[in-house]
């Protein structure tokens, strides 16, 4: 408050804005979500010019401004390229419930992909146990529980050294 502030009842008006949406996934995201849901597979798409494989698949390669053309199956194994241990009870806006902290959270480059995916890591939330560069594998919900959302991935499991 500024110094000149005086004692006065200051009125506030709480208000909840609740806007409903029905989002269409569109042609490219639909393929990704349906393959994940029905077949447990990850699909990216390759740019015909720079050959970059992008996930999620999308209509245009932003770097080349051309239409992406070639579907590529990716993963399910990948490499951890960044991580954090989350101590904040971040709310899942689609359920209204928080993800219970602390939890390990990371950025994974699926094999065959030039993109990364942020998701939960099934690793104890201790810094020493997580390393950039470690190999991980996606663990999915059982087929009947999958809905076509990234939450169909439960988390990434570390792959023990072979």
């Amino acid at each position, binding site marked *: 408050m500024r110094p000149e502030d005086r004692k006065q009842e*200051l009125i*506030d008006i709480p208000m909840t804005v609740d806007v409903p949406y029905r989002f269409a996934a569109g042609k490219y995201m639909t393929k990704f979500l349906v393959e994940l849901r029905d077949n447990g597979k990850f699909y990216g798409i390759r740019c015909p010019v720079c050959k970059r494989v992008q996930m999620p698949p*999308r209509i245009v390669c932003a770097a080349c401004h051309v239409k992406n053309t070639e579907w590529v199956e990716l993963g399910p194994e990948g490499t951890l390229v*960044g991580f*954090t241990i*989350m101590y904040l009870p971040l709310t899942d806006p689609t359920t209204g419930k928080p993800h219970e902290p602390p939890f390990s959270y990371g950025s994974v480059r699926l094999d065959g992909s030039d993109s990364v995916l942020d998701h939960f890591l099934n690793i104890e939330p201790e810094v020493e146990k997580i390393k950039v560069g470690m190999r991980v594998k996606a663990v999915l919900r059982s087929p009947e529980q999958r809905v076509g959302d*990234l939450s169909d991935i439960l988390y990434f499991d570390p792959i023990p050294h072979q």
Partner: protein
Amino acid sequence: MKRNVAIIGGGQTYHAARRHDVNQVEMVNEAVRSALEDAKMAIDEIDTVLIGNMEFFEGTHLTDCWLVDGSGAYGKPGLKITTGGTVGATIVCGGVHHVASGLFDKVLCIGFEKQEEGDTGAILSGVAHPLYGRSMAGAAVGYFAMMGTSYMAAWGAKEVHSAMVAVKARQNARKNKYAHLKLDITVEDALNSRMLAYPIRMLDMCPASNGACAMILADEKTAKDRCANPVWIRAMDTAHNEQFELDWRDVTTKKPIFSRTSSARIYKQLGVNKPVDYFDVFEIYEPATWAEMVWYEDLGLCGPGEGFRLIEEKRTEIDGSIPVNPSGGVLSTNCIGASAMLRVWEAALQIRGDAGDHQVPKEVRRALTTAYGGTNWTVITALSRSLDD
């Protein structure tokens, strides 16, 4: 640019976590009055009003329309632009274009955010694609946390370097009467603050602030007629980044990055070889400590992997050779829609010599500012005291 454009006045609110004494219209009006007073100008003299904030952050659609009494836009031409966190600088950019076009001589630019009124969590998670990651969005803190782990792994920096950035920002803020977080803290305090997302602690992140910034831009003739100390906007460059590839957090990436691309373009435009020699002060948009060190490198203030050395060697302190964020920066004050404009206005104050207690103790002829927002977007602005500089 067809006409030279100068900042001939500006102002800001006292930024704070709570401003229960004003509504949004009144808060914006504080900054507008302050800018008009600084420029010794009446609202009637303003030709057009441009305003921006984080759209829908406060749960209000078409805020420009609501705020007309406070912004002074009633009966005037004007518009609202939004580009996320960069918007304050985008508005300046739009203002520069308005003046340079020759259609307007005096343009009022406004950026604001009354963060306490909005639902930060809900709106920030809305940045994620609704069908790809919104259900588990790690928010900004998760993103910068990964940048931190990447930075430490790649360059051997330690958490203490982040703490040094945190301390510099808040100690500088103590010298800035408008700043929000004026904290007399030590490196130990920063290292002991609550962990949010490893390695980001409470003091490593920007706060949620309420505040507004307004600036008046003018053409060369008006500037010279009406202003004793105009600050010239010499170049601006915008680089947005694609939706899903947020490579900035991987500090070793070889991909073209928004920050390096944009600064390279602006340096080329101005013929800058060594930015640390060319510019006397920097005001950058650092939502988190690690981003400040990465900015040092991406702006070419040092080589790759050397950012943490700059802070270690105190080179970027107010009295260092490369002062960065003498105002306290975004780590001390983050009223999102105003944050990027505040960088430009603070740089202008340094050039004018009007920064008060946080004025850098050397001659300031040129300054560089950055913005940050969206999915790794920036607007970089170069300012000078003289058109000959």
